[in-house]
């Protein structure tokens, strides 16, 4: 373990800024527990965490700047590389912004396909999070249980969209291709498999006494703090904040489907865990309502070959697996955007980490970070 941590040698940190007996260590950027190139500068007193300072920028690819030189059809594929676990939802947000600006009417069939794909992505993302969280706590096998179901979703994606992770399936005006003839049957098979296997998750992890004592009462975030730090998604809903974009600002056909917004009020790591587990079941409910009722029709609206947005500013938000993703486009009327800004959910959720773990032990730091469900390329962009 010693080789992975390195004592900072800068004199001003060790002498003036930190008190007697405090130790500043770097966790990351190359550390298996941070799930990517996240660099945490942690001030410790013994095993107690005094301060956590995330350092970003190790995977900054300047996606926002890159998008300024790409056309409105081309820039969507780059956004798959931000939050790669909910690539569909990122593409969806971008496509929706362009449609909103150009006032393109999306066919109902495309809307159904989009929502089903979004929810499948949400389940796949939460599956991976569940496995990775258990791995953070030292349980290795749940990762493989989670990947068993996730693999089924990936196969469905591969068959219909052509790729497993970076699909680039949503285009302005609809979806890129019609669903595969066996898509509906495969999704139904997946729902059956998932329903019989989700109980195993509870048996293996949720009910386990070791897991509960690592989660309950750890990493508490009050409702007020969640709002003031700008947390969204399951992190905020675990603290009792009503913030599901699918409910507050329904887009596409979310208004027509029945589902519950999962809210837990305890605010600790375990309630964030429960929110995600229950959300998977809600997503299954949404897919079940839609999968048999996909209407006939076009899967893509007729659009011009070269898209030109009118002059102005456009903003859309969607609910990804991690929280609220906002896409803000400033257009000068040309074929490329003047400025693009992405409001990523991971960045705001990470900012609350310091507040959540102060005073807890260093082992709980990793457990709490696991419940935030961080995807580093989403934070850095």
């Amino acid at each position, binding site marked *: 373990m010693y080789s992975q941590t390195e004592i900072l040698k800068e004199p001003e940190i060790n002498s003036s800024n930190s008190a007697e007996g405090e130790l500043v260590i770097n966790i990351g950027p190359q550390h298996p527990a941070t799930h990517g190139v996240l660099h945490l500068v942690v001030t410790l007193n013994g095993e107690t965490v005094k301060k956590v300072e995330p350092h970003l920028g190790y995977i900054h690819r300047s996606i926002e700047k890159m998008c300024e030189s*790409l056309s409105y*059809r*081309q*820039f969507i*594929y*780059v956004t798959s590389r931000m939050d790669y676990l909910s690539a569909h939802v990122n593409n969806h947000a971008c496509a929706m912004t362009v449609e909103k600006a150009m006032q393109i009417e999306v066919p109902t069939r495309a809307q159904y396909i989009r929502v089903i794909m979004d929810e499948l992505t949400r389940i796949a993302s939460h599956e991976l999070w569940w496995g990775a969280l258990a791995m953070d706590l030292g349980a290795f*096998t749940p990762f493989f249980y989670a990947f*068993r179901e996730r*693999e089924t979703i990936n*196969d469905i994606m*591969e*068959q*219909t*969209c*052509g*790729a497993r992770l*970076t699909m*680039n399936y949503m*285009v302005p005006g609809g979806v*890129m*291709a019609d669903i*595969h003839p066996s898509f509906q049957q495969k999704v139904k098979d997946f729902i059956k498999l998932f329903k019989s296997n989700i109980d*195993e998750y509870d*048996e*293996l*992890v949720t*009910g*386990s*006494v*070791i897991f509960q004592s690592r989660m309950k009462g750890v990493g508490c975030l009050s409702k007020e703090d969640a709002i003031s730090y700008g947390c969204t998604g399951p992190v905020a809903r675990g603290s009792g904040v009503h913030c599901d974009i699918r409910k507050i600002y329904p887009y596409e056909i979310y208004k027509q489907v029945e589902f519950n917004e999962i809210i837990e009020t305890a605010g600790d790591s375990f309630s964030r865990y429960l929110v995600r587990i229950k959300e998977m079941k809600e997503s299954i409910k949404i897919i079940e309502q839609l999968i048999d009722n996909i209407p006939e029709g076009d899967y893509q609206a007729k659009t011009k*070959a070269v898209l030109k947005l009118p002059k102005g500013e456009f903003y859309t938000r969607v609910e990804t697996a991690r929280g609220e993703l906002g896409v803000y486009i400033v257009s000068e009327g040309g074929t490329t955007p003047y400025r693009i800004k992405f409001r990523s959910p991971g960045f705001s959720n990470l900012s609350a980490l310091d507040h959540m773990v102060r005073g807890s032990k260093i082992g709980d730091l990793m457990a709490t970070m696991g419940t935030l469900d961080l995807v580093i390329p989403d934070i850095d962009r």
Partner: protein
Amino acid sequence: MFLKEYLSDIYHATKSLLTGMKRTGYYFVHPKEIITEQYPDNRETLKMADRFRGEVIMPHDANNEHACTGCTACELACPNATIKIITKFDVTPEGKKKKALDTFVYHLELCTMCNLCVEACPTDAIKMGQNFEHSVYDRSMLLKKLNKPGSKIREGVE
């Protein structure tokens, strides 16, 4: 009262651990339910999905003819400058000059398999291939010419 709670805690803790172990034990004695595929060993039977995007290919028919007119729509659609179309001028039997494809240069090392070029193609001359085993020893081997030597455009494709 304290003793009762203490014992009940121990009972529930042991029960929760045993429930988890039971699930693990089930898969230990049911190896047929394991779904892992051993990749290099199953290469003969491994079949990728029809729409899987592995690389851009240009299908040629039996007469070594393709459908590319050299219109550069794919080149314009590509976000990464993966495709470079080099055109030439053919002389038609009537004596007129006609623009035609000379070389379809495809940089596989730059390609992100976004499918935008295939979407943009007006004559369906290119499509996505299923081959995904692209590793080579030298980067220059990833630069490909998609039209076969001596190939020409199919009759009737405009």
